[in-house]
């Protein structure tokens, strides 16, 4: 058992919630801080009360059995304004790669590289980050390479229903 000042516990809790990239359970925080879970629970409730005040822009929400720090919903318009100009258009290389994946999925990176004749590492990373493509399985055979396909988000962007709606998939699958 570690001894803390009350303020210190709140500060550490706030710092932990800030850096966590997924909801934190009381159990996890308890392990990290060496404090009992029910104490953590109390302090989180205390923290939530602090955050409730109108001059605070964040809140601590309970989600999926844990807690996470998010912005208050009323500020979303400003966050969108901050982010919107930062969304870059897709490059020609990204569009070409996306076109190949869309028509030939599931397809491995090596197969895409054969078609495009260049390395597609960074382009694939960009497309995956933007949630336009996703790993859909592994190809049988040596090395069992990862196969990629397009996402629901990709379909939404193009106003299309779903991958299953595409005809002639069988014809595309063979080479």
């Amino acid at each position, binding site marked *: 058992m570690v001894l803390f000042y009350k303020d210190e516990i709140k500060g550490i809790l706030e710092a932990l919630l800030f850096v966590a990239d997924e909801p934190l359970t009381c159990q996890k925080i308890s392990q990290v801080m060496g404090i009992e879970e029910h104490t953590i629970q109390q302090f989180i409730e205390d923290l939530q009360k602090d955050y409730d005040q109108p001059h605070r822009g964040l809140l601590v929400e309970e989600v999926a059995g844990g807690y996470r720090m998010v912005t208050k919903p009323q500020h979303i318009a400003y966050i*969108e304004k901050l*982010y919107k100009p930062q969304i870059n258009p897709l490059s020609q290389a990204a569009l070409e790669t996306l076109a190949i994946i869309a028509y030939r999925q599931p397809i491995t990176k090596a197969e895409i590289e054969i078609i495009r004749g260049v390395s597609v590492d960074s382009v694939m990373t960009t497309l995956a980050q933007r949630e336009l493509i996703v790993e859909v399985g592994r190809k049988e055979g040596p090395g069992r390479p990862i196969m990629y396909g397009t996402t629901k988000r990709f379909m939404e962007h193009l*106003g299309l229903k779903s991958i299953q709606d595409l*005809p002639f998939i069988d014809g595309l699958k063979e080479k």
Partner: protein
Amino acid sequence: MEYCVKLSIFEGPMDLLLHLIEKQELDIYNIPIATITEQYLAYLKEAKELDIEFASEFLVMAATLLSIKAKMLFPKPQKEVSENYEEDPRKELMEHLLLYKKIKEATLILKDLEKNQRAKVCRPLDKDKFAAKLFTNIDIPGLTVDGLLAAVEQLIKENKKEFIQFVVKNKYYINEQIDVILSKTRQYNRFLFRELFGEKMNLLEVLVTFLALLELVKMQKIKVIQESPFSQITIVKI
């Protein structure tokens, strides 16, 4: 003197030289060049270093030291020395050492700053991923059916055999689309590529129609106009 350390603990010959000088509290402004050369060479001899490329950088300094030592031993004849100014052969090395010493000082400052900064953690945030979540319903600029078609066009232009194979495999369907386009040209002299589709078009249909379009252009039945990349494609009857 014991030489139990490796050369690689030093950042280079300057670092070693500065280390020898500071360890013995020698005066940089008046370096006992014979002593320091001897110590430096002894160090090189004892240090069992296998990396020749790294060691060669230390040897360059050894040569410099020996040359300074030689100049000190054999001063220039009296008449060649200018009246009011006598060049010390150690001057350049002295200035270099003074500068390097300051760089070491600066390095420590940077190291401290880095250490302090590493104790403050930013939120791990993937901008693109975050933006993707924020704007699920907003278009990514450039990602349109037309944009994708432009990319396909580019691929075909570059003679990618995979796509040609695809064209061959779907010949029948392409012929069907050729008929669709031709029948439309009988009605209109000029129309948009987009008008060939209903509100719900699917991607493959768009692609095949596009390939049919290229086929018709080749057959010189139609002309295709696109003002700029990603803009609307206009079909004109010939």
